[in-house]
Each structure stands twice: as structure tokens, then as C-alpha cells.
């Protein structure tokens, strides 16, 4: 079981690369439409300095945006759980904020905030906000009724009940929300980079496409994927460590 768990991801990756190469061999697509795995690997190595710089920039946006989005999402969830009337008022607004496609907001944010890191961070934060707020609120609203009865008869105030009972009990759902947000966060940063600015992996992809450097575009895509997987793995590990303490 353990062995298959460790071997599965490399096996899937190898299968994917084989399929990719097979598709090129079977269809005879030219490299400027679909470069082979070898060409992309060569581009990753040749452009490693550009890609490393871009990846660090994207990572910085992902980390900041994730922290802001998850932090404000968790804060709002606590506020909504503490004041049910606030929750009733904000629930529709929260949903509406989520059905607006982030793609549509990115150009506006670039117009407002310029071509620096700010609009990318905001797009990432917006994407991370909802899964965290929604999952955490779900957890906070499902505190075990027996425990809430106990807290009431013990004379606990709402603030202490929240801190000692409801928040610790909702941590598993907060963890799920964080893991989900960690998957979306790099997408947010890349969308932001596509729309404006000249730095980050998204910008590298857009520029490479414009110059018909499809191999570089794919190389950036590979790096984005690796970055996203690594970020998700890091957040998952942190969540697991954190939850172990709250069994």
C-alpha cells in the first residue's frame, strides 16, 4: 500500500509523458504547434534563469494572496458564526462574489492597481477567500450540540465558547478549505500575470506564445504545475501537522 502510494505519482507522470510523445509520433504535429517532452525539457534547462526568477515572483504572489485570502476568509467565517444575523445578511453576497468569474475581474483590477504585484495578489486572495470562508463557516456552525449545551450550563461567554470550543472543533473543515484554496491559488496568480505586467510565469507564457516559442510556453506550464503541486503538498502537510494536535 505504502509503496504504491509513493510510486503512483511518478508512474502517472511517466504515462503522461509517453502518451504525449505517442500523440506527436502518431499525428505528426509540428513542434511549433505541440513540442515534444524532450523539447520542453530542453527549454526548461536552457531558460532556467528566466523560469526561476519568474517562478519566485509567482510564488511570492501565491503566498501573499493565499495568506490574505485565507486569513480574511477565516476571519469572516468566525464573525458570521458569532453573529447569525450577519451570516444571514452576508450569505447571498458571499455567493454572488463567488459566481463573478475572476477572469473578468483581473483586467479591472489591473486597471485599478497597476502592473505590479498588487492585482495578482488580489486575484489570488479573491480565489482563496471563498473556499476557506465557506468550509470554516460550515464547521463553526456545526459545533456538537452536546458541547454547546455544556458550555451554556457552565456559564461560558460567546467569545470563550468560540475560542475554546467552536474554533478547535471546526479546524478539520478549515483544513479542507485551506487545501482547496491551495489548489486554486496558483491559478489566480497566473491569471493576474496573463492580464498585465511582465513578470511571473504567466507573463512568460503569454510572451512566449506571442513569439511562437511554444516550447518555452510549455516549459513555463510545467513549472507552474510543479509549483502548484509543491504548494498544495506544503499546505496539506501543514494542515495535517496542525490537526494532529487537535486529534
Amino acid at each position, binding site marked *: 500500500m505504502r509503496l504504491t502510494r509513493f510510486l503512483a505519482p511518478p508512474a502517472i507522470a511517466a504515462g503522461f509523458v509517453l502518451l504525449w510523445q505517442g500523440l506527436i509520433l502518431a499525428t505528426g504535429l509540428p513542434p511549433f504547434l505541440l513540442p515534444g517532452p524532450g523539447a520542453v525539457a530542453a527549454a526548461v534547462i536552457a531558460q532556467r534563469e528566466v523560469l526561476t526568477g519568474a517562478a519566485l515572483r509567482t510564488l511570492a504572489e501565491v503566498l501573499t494572496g493565499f495568506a490574505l485570502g485565507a486569513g480574511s476568509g477565516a476571519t469572516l467565517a468566525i464573525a458570521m458564526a458569532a453573529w447569525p444575523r450577519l451570516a444571514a445578511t452576508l450569505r447571498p453576497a458571499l455567493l454572488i462574489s463567488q459566481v463573478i468569474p475572476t477572469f473578468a475581474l483581473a483586467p479591472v483590477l489591473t486597471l485599478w492597481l497597476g502592473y505590479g504585484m498588487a492585482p495578482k495578489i488580489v486575484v489570488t486572495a479573491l480565489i482563496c477567500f471563498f473556499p476557506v470562508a465557506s468550509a470554516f463557516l460550515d464547521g463553526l456552525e456545526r459545533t456538537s450540540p452536546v458541547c454547546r449545551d455544556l458550555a*451554556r*450550563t457552565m456559564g461560558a461567554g460567546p467569545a470563550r465558547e468560540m475560542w475554546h470550543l467552536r474554533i478547535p472543533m471546526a479546524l478539520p473543515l478549515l483544513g479542507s478549505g485551506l487545501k482547496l484554496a491551495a489548489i486554486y491559488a496558483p491559478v489566480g496568480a497566473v491569471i493576474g500575470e496573463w492580464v498585465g505586467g511582465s513578470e511571473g510565469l504567466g507573463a512568460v507564457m503569454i510572451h512566449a506564445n506571442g513569439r511562437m516559442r511554444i516550447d518555452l510556453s510549455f516549459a513555463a506550464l510545467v513549472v507552474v504545475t510543479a509549483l502548484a503541486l509543491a504548494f498544495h503538498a506544503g499546505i496539506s502537510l501543514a494542515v495535517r501537522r496542525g490537526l494532529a494536535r*487537535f486529534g
Partner: protein
Amino acid sequence: MTAAPVLLSGTVRMGARTLFPPLRLELAPGRWTALLGPSGVGKSTLLRLLAGLPIGGTFEGRVENRPPVALMAQDPALLPWLTARQNAALGARLRGEAADRDRLAAVLRRTGLADHGDKPPAALSGGQRQRVALARTLMEDRALVLLDEPFSALDARMRLAMQDLAAELLRGRTVLIVTHDPAEAARLADRIFLMTETGLTEEVAPACPAPRPPADPAVLACQGALLTRLTEAPACA
């Protein structure tokens, strides 16, 4: 501890349905009162009214002389991230007070948990967890203790042991125990009320002091009489 008896009188409606007709329940100070009945007749709702907890319906009536209560239910509701000792002192934690360390140590000793204080609930057996819940109830040191089927999830041997322990440690307090087990009522209660759809009726409890031996003829007779009365009562729809 309380001079005047706790008195509940009134009726509860759930929308158009009457959960129970007007009734009167008096808890004798310093005594154990058992509330026996089938599921769904509103026993737990009565207990929640006495605890001052919200109920899912409207209560028309009054509760007189209600002191602060301590609550213990079938689910020990221990917090998995706290140790047994911290769980026993949960009340102080939730009120932002420092727990009385000497009293905490004494309560853990009396509940047989002296060697288990540092363990998390996951490392305790079902019976030990229920002991922690009892220790937590004792730490609250309230005049009125409400027990909502506290031992019904335990196996027979553990249940008897916990009944003995609870009877000993809660002696002198006003206790209401909600149960669907006639044997439990017959062993522990000074007064026994049978609750059915038609209301409350008082049954005769054995005269000897609790906890009574399970095979005592008076206990067995009481248990048999309660069972008979329960089967006579109309089944809950």
C-alpha cells in the same frame, strides 16, 4: 443545598402538536428523582427546561427556584485535544478562571482517574471517559445535577459501577436522572416519575438507601412494576 424544591409546571408545544400536556414536576432538595419513560415523550425537553437550555418548541409555564445546574449526558462530549484533567476542568477554562488544583486532584482521585489525568480521551476506555464526564460534573459543584441517560451507552458491568460511583459522589445534591432503564431508576432514585404521552405519574420507589443492590427483592419488585407500567402505557407513534 437548596431549601426550596425546584418546581417545573407547564406544557410544551411543538408547532401545532402538544409535546406533553400540562404537568408538574417537583424535585426534592438533596434527593434523586428519576424520570422514566419511552423515547419521544419529552423527557429530555423537561431536562432542558430545568437546565435553562433552548428547546425546539414553546414552553408555557414556569420553573421556580432553579439554581445553576451541572449537566451530564450519554455522550461524554470530551474535547479530544485536551487531557482528561483539562476536560474535567473545562468549566473553569470556559469561564476564563483558574481551576482549583487541589479540588481537581481530589475529584480525579475520587473518580478513579488519578493515574489517567494526563491522557487524552482517545487513550481512555468508554467507562473512563464517562468517569471524566462525571469528574467534570463534580468540578462544577452545582446544587442541581441533571443526568440525561448518562450510563445507557455502557455495558452492564460498567453501568452498575458508574451508578454506584455517581450515587456516592452526588449524594446530598438534588439530582434529576432521565432514563429509559427501569433497573436504573429502581437502583438509584428516591422518587420515580413515569412520563408518558398522557403526563407524569409518580411510582413507588424502594425505601432502602441508594445505590441499592441490583438483586435486592425490593429493587427487583420495583423494576418489575415499572416495566409493567411502561408496557401498559400507549406506544409512542
